[in-house]
């Protein structure tokens, strides 16, 4: 197992597990909760086909610790820089060309919810709770959450951000904040199962090509995305033809 700040990394064959561990609530003391270069190294490991992000213990993450945040805010430049690094970490996760699933038990608040929103799929256990409590403290989500939540839910995001609504798993499924509810107590069971169904018979190359195309949807114009899709397809096709003739 490898460690960077409050996050550890372990391999389960072709899956990588990122575990958030910081006391019982897995607070994100700092917006840069992991070293981006470490994370980059881990995700470049050979034969990696998918990633699960989870919290150790009963909670995913309760987000920022408000006391810590106040302290950081004493120097605005420091806070600004750290927020930007935090954003880069989440952008990096969102742009990964392998599926990333958030396995969510218990509290998933603030920065924790920001991490979950950067994942490609969210699977929660029955006891999960979601919220952006920032508005209660005169703040707003600061790591891209306002954008990601609105992309995902449309206007429903206004309520969640402005009222700091507390949302349970069933409600989260209904509005589309989570994709699946696990029948077992730990959401990681279903996360593993879902990931297996997507990656077990697929080559790294096929997974990366398809994911790159899917990730292009929000980054490129329609014409660029369609062009990139055809190119990725043709590259795979040349390989397939090659293998068949061998």
């Amino acid at each position: 197992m490898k460690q960077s700040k409050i996050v550890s990394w372990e391999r389960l064959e072709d899956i990588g597990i990122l575990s958030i561990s910081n006391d019982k609530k897995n607070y994100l003391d700092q917006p840069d909760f992991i070293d981006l270069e470490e994370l980059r190294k881990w995700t470049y490991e050979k034969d990696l086909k998918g990633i699960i992000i989870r919290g150790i213990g009963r909670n995913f993450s309760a987000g920022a610790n408000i006391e810590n945040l106040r302290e950081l805010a004493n120097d605005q430049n420091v806070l600004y820089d750290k927020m930007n690094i935090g954003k880069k970490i989440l952008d990096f996760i969102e742009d990964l060309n392998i599926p990333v699933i958030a396995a969510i038990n218990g509290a998933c608040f603030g920065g924790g919810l920001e991490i979950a929103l950067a994942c490609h799929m969210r699977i929660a256990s029955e006891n999960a709770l979601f919220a952006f409590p920032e508005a209660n403290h005169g703040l707003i989500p600061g790591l891209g959450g306002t954008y990601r939540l609105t992309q995902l839910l449309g206007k429903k995001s206004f309520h969640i951000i402005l009222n700091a609504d507390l949302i349970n798993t069933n409600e989260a499924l209904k509005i589309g904040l989570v994709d699946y509810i696990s029948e077992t107590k730990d959401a990681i069971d279903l996360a593993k199962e879902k990931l297996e169904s997507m990656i077990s018979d697929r080559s790294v190359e096929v997974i990366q090509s398809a994911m790159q195309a899917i990730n292009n949807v929000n980054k490129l114009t329609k014409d660029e995305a369609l062009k990139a899709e055809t190119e990725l397809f043709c590259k795979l096709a040349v390989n397939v033809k090659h293998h068949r003739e061998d």
Partner: protein
Amino acid sequence: MFKVLNWNIKERIGYLEINNPPSNPMDSVFFEEFYWWRTEIVESAEIDSVIIHGKGRHFSSGAVLNELLGIISRSYEHGKDIKKISEFLNKNSQIFYSLKELKIPVIVAIRGVCIGSAFELALCADYIVCGEKAVLGLPETTFDLMPGCTGTYVLPKVVGKALAMELILSGKTFFPSEALDWKLIQKVVPTKQVLDYATNIAKNLAPKFIEDLKLI
């Protein structure tokens, strides 16, 4: 006029039938004719809506893999450059997507199998009606490929990234009842009623159709 397409107009509805039963494959002749139909015929026709369907039991089994792989690898062997063949094939994506630029509603009526490129074509329509026993999906990754004709772009727009990722990577086929839950299709009817239902929808949709609905 066409070999693998039939084009008929009845009561201001244009019926485009993929006519190469039983599986109505989308070979290079299909793509040539579809291009011709889209660029030279449909917009000058006196119609208020279009219905696309397959002849016989199935809609279409999608692209013809061996032919397609042959075309791509011959081009690649010739110049060792993927760009040229990619530009050529991108025309197919553009022409599928351009169904959204038509000023009239496009309805796809699916009986039987509609997978791969055929399902990608359907996703570019405005309304999809399926028979109860239709089989849908994008199984390309199970052949070590990926959807290459608008699927990776349109599917996430319709059902979101998570489900699109799952359907594309798993490559599993699915039933109309599931697709209806995901709002991926609009209606499921008994197989025998698919074409009649599409005709009724065409008549109802055409007069109140709002062009803005098309663009996603």
